[in-house]
């Protein structure tokens, strides 16, 4: 077994783990965390593919690597936005949950944020 295969299997396991965590964990923050973990697994898969594509004197295919860099930045942006949303939700309602019951009832005289 080569190192790439090893890390490839590791990536597959991380993806499974991240999916499980983001579905099952009730806390939104830990869903976000699991999503990042999941993203790590996907990026690792890119890395394995890049390494397998080593050619022309390069230790790895640079194209997937560049994609991972882009992907990491996008994932961070998503995390920052999601965390801020969550914190704001917590400030507004005093709880941090994604649970829903019936569709939200209208409150006719709710005002705009903070105004």
């Amino acid at each position, binding site marked *: 077994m080569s190192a790439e295969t090893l890390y490839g299997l590791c990536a597959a396991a991380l*993806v499974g783990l*991240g*999916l499980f965590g*983001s579905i099952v964990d009730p806390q*939104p923050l830990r*869903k*976000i965390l699991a*999503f990042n973990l*999941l*993203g790590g697994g*996907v990026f690792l*898969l*890119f890395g*394995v*593919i890049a390494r*397998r*594509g080593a050619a022309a004197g390069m230790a790895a295919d640079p*194209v*997937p690597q560049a*994609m991972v860099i*882009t*992907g990491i930045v*996008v994932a961070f*942006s*998503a995390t920052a*936005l*999601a965390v801020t*949303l*969550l914190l*704001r*939700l917590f400030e*507004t*309602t005093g709880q941090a949950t*994604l649970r*829903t019951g019936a*569709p*939200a009832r*209208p409150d*006719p*005289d*709710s005002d*705009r*944020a*903070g105004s």
Partner: protein
Amino acid sequence: MPPAVTLASAATAGGFLLVLAIILPAAGVLLALAFGRHAERIALLLMPAGFAIAIAILADVWHSQASLVAVMGGWAPPLGIALRADGLSAMMLVTTALVICAVGLFARGDFGMPAGGGEARAPLVFWTMLMGVWSALNAIWLGRDLFNLYVALELLTFSAVPLVCLDGRAETLAAALRYLLFALVGSVLYLLGVALFYGAYGTLDIGLLAGRVRAEPVVWVSAALMTAGLLAKTALFPLHLWLPPAHAGAPAAASAVLSALVVKGSFFLAVRLWFDVLPGLPGVPAAQALGTLGAAAIIFGSVLALRQERLKLLIAYSTIAQIGYLFLLFPLSTGAAAAGIWGSVAWTGGVYQLVSHAIAKAAMFMAAGLIGEALGHDRIAGLGGIGRALPMTIFAFGLGGMSLMGLPPSGGFVAKLMLLTASVTEGQWWWAVVILLGGLLAAAYVFRVLAPALAGADEPLRLCARVSRRREAVVLALAVGALLLGLLPLRPSELLQIGRPAAPTAIMR
């Protein structure tokens, strides 16, 4: 390995238009951020230009009867990235421009900058995100590279989420968070598929991939993951958890964009994936599975719409139902049928539904916004007599409803007619039953709104705000557009065939 650079993607003369279609709104984002107090002006100035570009692309595609191609930086795929406008892209570009411009005109009332000349939160965010949505959508319609499309998809999500919770109420915050998280899981699944495709075939260019894919496990796994991820972003039943609160909670102008356009972005990518990247490969059972979900969405969304007490929730659930129609396209133009003319009838019908629903739904959400503004609430039970107070708005709502029901001569009628025809001629009559039933249910929920609105009020109507005639006119114009769409059924279906497969493999090899 094939040679790195193929002749396939040589740029066409009009290629710069494709770049501009994406870059112009993106530049709008930058300008709006830099000069916050002028965000509205910047957006409104860019709108005619963007609209003109979309029209120019359409004209160019129609005139040349061939796709427009632009190669970024002169680096041809697979190393570089190309953009391509086929007939379908051109049609989506124009639809997007139309809806965005209408929403822009409509939103001037809601999101004007404060009188003092300073910068305010909601207007800046709204106008900037609107530009972001536009740029992202154009990138999606034109993209030819699966990873580039991933970035566009994320751009779309990131512009759409803040629009949901623009008013900062707790329930819209929760809705936005659910939307964001579910959409993110969807994007990761999509990205996973992208990785697998690259690992197997060494390119992400749609045209090159189409020539290289074979029926093998990697294709099935990645196609399944990508499709599932895109379905999550499209909110196809039963993955609709985020849509009703998000679309119903957002400000009307934002809801219009979200419901009319944003969910279509990921659907469009699913279409690209199945018909352009993997022509014929996903196979009949998978297409039937997607069709089944679509059918379930039609019934489920319509019944739920019928049972809502709030107008905007009703419209949101109707979006779930209407998304269902789109997915009938898959079983009706896959497999044996794909070769025949009827496959393209179903295909055209599906795309027609895409466009007509976009226009009709935007008009309906904006009409609901005006109604809510005038009444101070959007409870359906309290709509009595609103027809007399806002005749243009209710008329617009009714016209949009006609398209949802599939009454002639609306665009929705043509779409459903084509889907029905395809399902009959292919012997898949079960879809026809669902389409008809969906039409009946749509009539019922539209009627539920129109009946009290057109009847007299039990007590004199008390309006809490005056609604500007100009905004009513914008909504009505859009609704009339949805109606008139049915009057030109022949030419667009020819347009949609430009750059269709049969072509790609032949050209690429």
